């Protein structure tokens, strides 16, 4: 019997469909922290087309974007909102500065929350990223 293909959980499918309609930057990560989707607004914000970032682990993504805290100190995954959500399965909020693909630094607010399927399985993280007003074009 042929093996059936793998499929994303319906909660992720709906989250992706929702994010695809938003003008706000959204990143969708699986439970291990792999980037499985980001929308056009996130592409614009980071300067990186999804095809370039798809499948990146959180660590790989961080090495490209070099996130720093308000004091300008580089932070690791565990110190970022998405790290908190990934590791503790809790919502988290923070302000970080990251480097875009064209080398610019951009300050953003980010709110991340865990996605639970109704069987209470942790299926991923939904991260909304908002450029801070003074930095917006």
């Amino acid at each position, binding site marked *: *019997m*042929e093996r*059936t*293909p*793998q*499929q*994303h*959980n*319906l*909660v992720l*499918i*709906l989250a*992706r*469909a*929702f994010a*695809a*309609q938003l003008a706000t930057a959204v990143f969708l990560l699986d439970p291990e922290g792999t980037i499985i989707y980001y929308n056009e607004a996130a592409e614009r914000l980071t300067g990186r087309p999804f095809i370039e970032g798809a499948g990146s682990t959180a660590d790989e993504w961080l090495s490209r974007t070099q996130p720093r805290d308000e004091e300008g100190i580089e932070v690791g995954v565990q110190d970022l909102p998405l790290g908190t959500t990934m590791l503790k399965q809790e919502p988290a909020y923070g302000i970080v500065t990251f480097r875009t693909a064209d080398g610019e630094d951009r300050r953003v607010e980010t709110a991340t929350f865990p996605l639970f*399927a*109704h*069987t*209470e399985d942790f299926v991923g993280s939904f991260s909304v990223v908002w450029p801070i007003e003074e930095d917006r074009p």
Partner: protein
Amino acid sequence: MKGRIWGSRGSIASPGEDTKRYGGNTSCIELRPPDCDVVILDAGTGIRELGVRLVREGAQRMFLLLTHLHVDHLEGLGMFEPIWRKETELHIWGPSSPVASLEQRIATYFSPPLFPVHLSEVPATIEYHDASESEWQIDGARFSSNAIIHPGPTVGYRIESKGRVLAYLTDHEPALGANLATDPPDWISGFALAHRADLLIHDCQYTPQEYEDRPGFGHSTTEHVARFAEKAEVDRLVLFHHDPMHPDDQLDAMREDVVARWGVDDDRCISAAEGAEIVV
């Protein structure tokens, strides 16, 4: 695998002159996988007549797979004769919700004031199984279920037996927020369940024109189902969950539309008709 359609209508039973050929009973399909007791897909009004047949046969062990608990998929259960016999062993699969078990959810309908008798008073032995996302085996058949896009907890089923596969995805709107032609398959609701099925039974409630006012209602159009069948590479397709406002002639036209859009031979797509035999 063989089976029979006992109800193919969606939303509400709609008997009458205009619906005589395809029937007016709501969703119910009987399935007979080899080496397995009878499997029933959904408990719409069509299940009443099936129940009469099963009692006559002397069937005692049976499996009911509910896709969800909207009334048109549950309303026949109270008139399903086997549950009123204490020798019946009924296993029900269906989706729980974040706040209630499958049994509690069924009891919401199966209790006063909506029904005169409470579910707990039914003489048959009933076992409830959460089918939100699972795989299981019964005798010679393998079952899998997964959540699909429809308002409220809803699942589709894939049933495999002797190398043949039937997929049942009624009440399904995979096109909601998705492009069925271009999106990767793993991002399309129901894809894994339907993938390369020998027979796919799928929602086809609307015409594309009707859908313009009904996105999010949880149903598919002729265009959606054609794209979905093509994407999932199914062999044959049965159009199901007919809109109660669609007369027989319109269902004929909708089937022709699906065949044209899918671009396959005419005999690979039929419209579900009450009483029709299914062979997988």
